């Protein structure tokens, strides 16, 4: 790390302020990132981490504040300016052209002159692989790559444009543990090469593992910057949350009732002839949470889609409270008493409609007065749910304007207010902050108490172990293990998820 004095810091943000309507996303934020450090931005969702970095990368314009790069003030109005100033950013949603190759994606937008020097790009990709351990086949099609590999392509893109400051917005949210290790290894080498890295996260243990210094944001303002070596976890957590956290845990109760969701011999085909689900059978009882563990891509998405009525199974049978709903439409599945909280929250709402309209969208006919839609009732319904689920938004706000946590609350409110018999929920806390996660967990446990049967699909083992009564493990589309949560431990689950204990468990 460079000491101050001789060399100016790589990035200096002074008094950055940004308001969205009445919401202050950034409130006079000062931040200094040195060359050759990994600087973590820690904070809950909605704390303003992403907004701050979007401002640095020119995606958002600040209302006030200055940006100083290498000691020189710069005006950043667009990503083009940011790239010219040596800043690169890997956002949560990748900006890759999927049908193109890695090399093509890397040079895209960075082509000087008329000729496209593909071989040159391929060589640089290979070079980066060598130097930083960021492995990628330059001639592979991006569409064929895993999410982790696509992320590497995004990093390569930034490096190809000679970035000296690399921003990563929650890079680990989409990665499996092995990929996280590889990413961290690459980041360490980049850091040692003198690149300043800004690492956005709300996971403490990751921040501890990778960062040099950490700045904690809360409600848009900086509440503290620490050298990671001098900070302890409790202090950082309380800075981040502003209050002591209480972990939610299910109460032990063996009072599960009769079967309310039965899945029998379910199979789903997929492209390339491989089956996404193979002969999957399980049952969920009233007042029970059945956890589905597994590394993503092992059939979870298809399982949830089939149960939500978004995908037709090739074989098998689904029963909700004795009613056959195999191959039903989403409306029929809802009518049968299934509440659905999908993995992709954005795909579950119509983001240009208002909060009130989205809350009522599944059962609009209940809001009719003669021929008309009763706007007052729609509003009242929305206001009631907004206060009950503490959604930070007004009934007339477009759903598009909600943060991740509030959007999830909107989806929860829409589903849970109707007291479904069965709840199918997938990755309910992915990308949510500590407080929102706790809230979601509490709501799911309340549904279990109420007597709903909950199918919880999650990649977060801690979440599964804290909430589920029983666990099944999906591996390559099959259930490779089933156990009561009391008998489960991370090691055993990890082996099953990795497909290592296949013979033993089946």
């Amino acid at each position: 790390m460079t000491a101050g004095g001789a060399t100016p810091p790589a990035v200096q943000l002074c008094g950055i302020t940004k308001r969205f309507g009445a919401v202050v996303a950034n409130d006079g934020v000062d931040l200094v990132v040195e060359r050759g450090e990994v600087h973590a931005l820690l904070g809950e969702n909605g704390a303003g981490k992403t907004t701050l970095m979007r401002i640095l990368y020119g995606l958002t314009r600040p209302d006030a504040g200055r940006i100083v790069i290498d000691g020189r003030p710069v005006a950043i109005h667009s990503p083009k300016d940011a790239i010219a100033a040596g800043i690169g950013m890997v956002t949560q949603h990748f900006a890759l052209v999927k049908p193109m190759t890695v090399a093509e994606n890397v040079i895209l937008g960075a082509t000087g002159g008329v000729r496209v020097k593909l071989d040159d790009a391929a060589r640089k990709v290979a070079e980066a692989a060598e130097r930083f351990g960021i492995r990628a086949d330059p001639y592979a099609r991006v569409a064929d790559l895993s999410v982790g590999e696509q992320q590497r392509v995004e990093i390569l893109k930034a490096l190809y444009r000679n970035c000296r400051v690399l921003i990563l917005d929650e890079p680990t949210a989409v990665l499996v543990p092995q990929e996280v290790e590889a990413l961290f290894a690459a980041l360490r080498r980049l850091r040692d090469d003198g690149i300043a890295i800004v690492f956005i996260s709300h996971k403490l243990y990751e921040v501890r593992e990778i960062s040099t210094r950490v700045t904690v944001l809360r409600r848009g303002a900086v509440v503290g910057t620490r050298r990671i070596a001098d900070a302890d976890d409790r202090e950082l957590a309380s800075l981040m949350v502003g209050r002591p956290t209480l972990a939610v845990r299910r109460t032990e109760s063996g009072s599960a009732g009769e079967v309310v969701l039965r899945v029998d011999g379910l199979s789903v085909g997929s492209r390339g002839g491989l089956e996404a689900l193979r002969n999957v059978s399980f049952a969920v009882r009233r007042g029970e949470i059945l956890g589905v563990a597994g590394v993503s891509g092992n059939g979870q998405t298809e399982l949830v889609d089939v149960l939500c009525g978004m995908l037709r199974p090739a074989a098998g049978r689904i029963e909700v409270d004795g009613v056959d709903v195999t191959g039903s439409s989403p409306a029929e599945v809802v009518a049968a008493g299934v509440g659905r909280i999908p993995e992709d929250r954005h795909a579950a709402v119509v983001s240009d409609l208002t909060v009130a309209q989205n809350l009522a969208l599944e059962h609009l006919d209940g809001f009719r007065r003669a021929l008309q839609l009763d706007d007052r009732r729609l509003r009242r319904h929305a206001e009631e749910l907004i206060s009950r689920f503490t959604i930070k938004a007004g009934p007339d706000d477009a759903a598009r304007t909600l943060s991740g946590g509030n959007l999830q609350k909107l989806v929860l409110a829409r589903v849970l207010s109707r007291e479904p018999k069965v709840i199918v929920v997938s990755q309910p806390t992915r990308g949510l902050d500590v407080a929102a996660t706790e809230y979601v967990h509490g709501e799911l446990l309340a549904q279990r108490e109420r007597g709903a049967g909950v199918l919880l699909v999650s990649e977060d083992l801690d979440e599964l172990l804290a909430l589920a009564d029983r666990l099944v493990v999906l591996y390559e589309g099959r259930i490779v293990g089933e156990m009561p949560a009391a008998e489960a431990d991370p090691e055993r689950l990890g082996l099953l998820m990795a497909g290592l204990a296949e013979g033993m468990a089946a």
Partner: protein
Amino acid sequence: MIGVRLEARAAPARWFNLAVAPIAIAVTFVLTMGFVLAAGASPLEAYDTFIVEPLTSRYTGLEVLVAATPLLFTGAAVAIAFRAGYWNIGAEGQLLVGAIAAAWAGTVVEDLPRVLAIATMAGLGALGGAVWALGPALMRVYLGVDEVVTTLLLNPVALLIVTGLLNGPWRNPETHFPESERISANAEFPQILSDSRVHLGFVIALAIIVAAWFVLARTATGLRLRAIGLSPEGARFAGIGVERLLLQAALVSGAIAGVAGASEVAGISYQLTDGISSGFGYTGIVVATLGGLTMPGVVIAALFLGDLVVGADSAGFELGVPSQLADIVKGVLLLVLIALLVFRHYRVSLRRAQGRGRS
């Protein structure tokens, strides 16, 4: 050096939505000035003739309503489809098939009471338009074929059917002109004002627009329709039958365009001719877009374009400029409008370009 840059806005500025139409019109006038000058007229005089003069006499004022009538239908038809995310470019063809159906109906209803005869005309027009819209709609919903291409390509097909009929079986037996037999008198849409050509079709168009406004803005179906247009995926997840609703929107759109054809046959020409539509279906796209896909907007845009059409006619004989000038103005207006709608998401900033060679 000063550079002009576009920067993305988080949300469209609110004032812009109100200002879009006036700005578009002003920019269009500046851009079309050259054509007016080339036609040998003074721009100010020409625009005065184009826009203001039609509104200064009772006769031309009412002619504006006549010219706006088919545009009200097609504008509403296109706006409904676009709102649902169904890009119906085929209102022209749907209008023509509606006109064929109505022209046929007009020759077989002479024994019916007047009200029934008129209802049959409008009904068959609607049916014709819906039938012409059905194929592309089914292909879109069940096969995923892009409706922009299919609806567009069916327009010339409809026109060929019209000319085929008029030069073949339907050729007028008395005059031997390529025009159909005159419809029976009881099937004609009555004029609603004395000594003007404003006819029942204008009232029907307004009624359809009021109904469409009510459905879109006030009902559950309307909200569902908007939802599938904004996010088919989110709407499907919420249990809305996207395919069915899309099909319905496409058919309703076709039906309304079909009534436009019936209205022209029964209210203006009383027979089918190959000039029954002067591009009303295409102009409907301009009307719908100019009107921001809302029904009040469609009314205003249709009246404005009707004004232009009447103005272009009088400009023809008053100033000696070709009446096609109105088509040029219309075309430029649409392009300017689309450009402005894109601009809405950006802000323009002027600033000094940075020196080169330094990074």
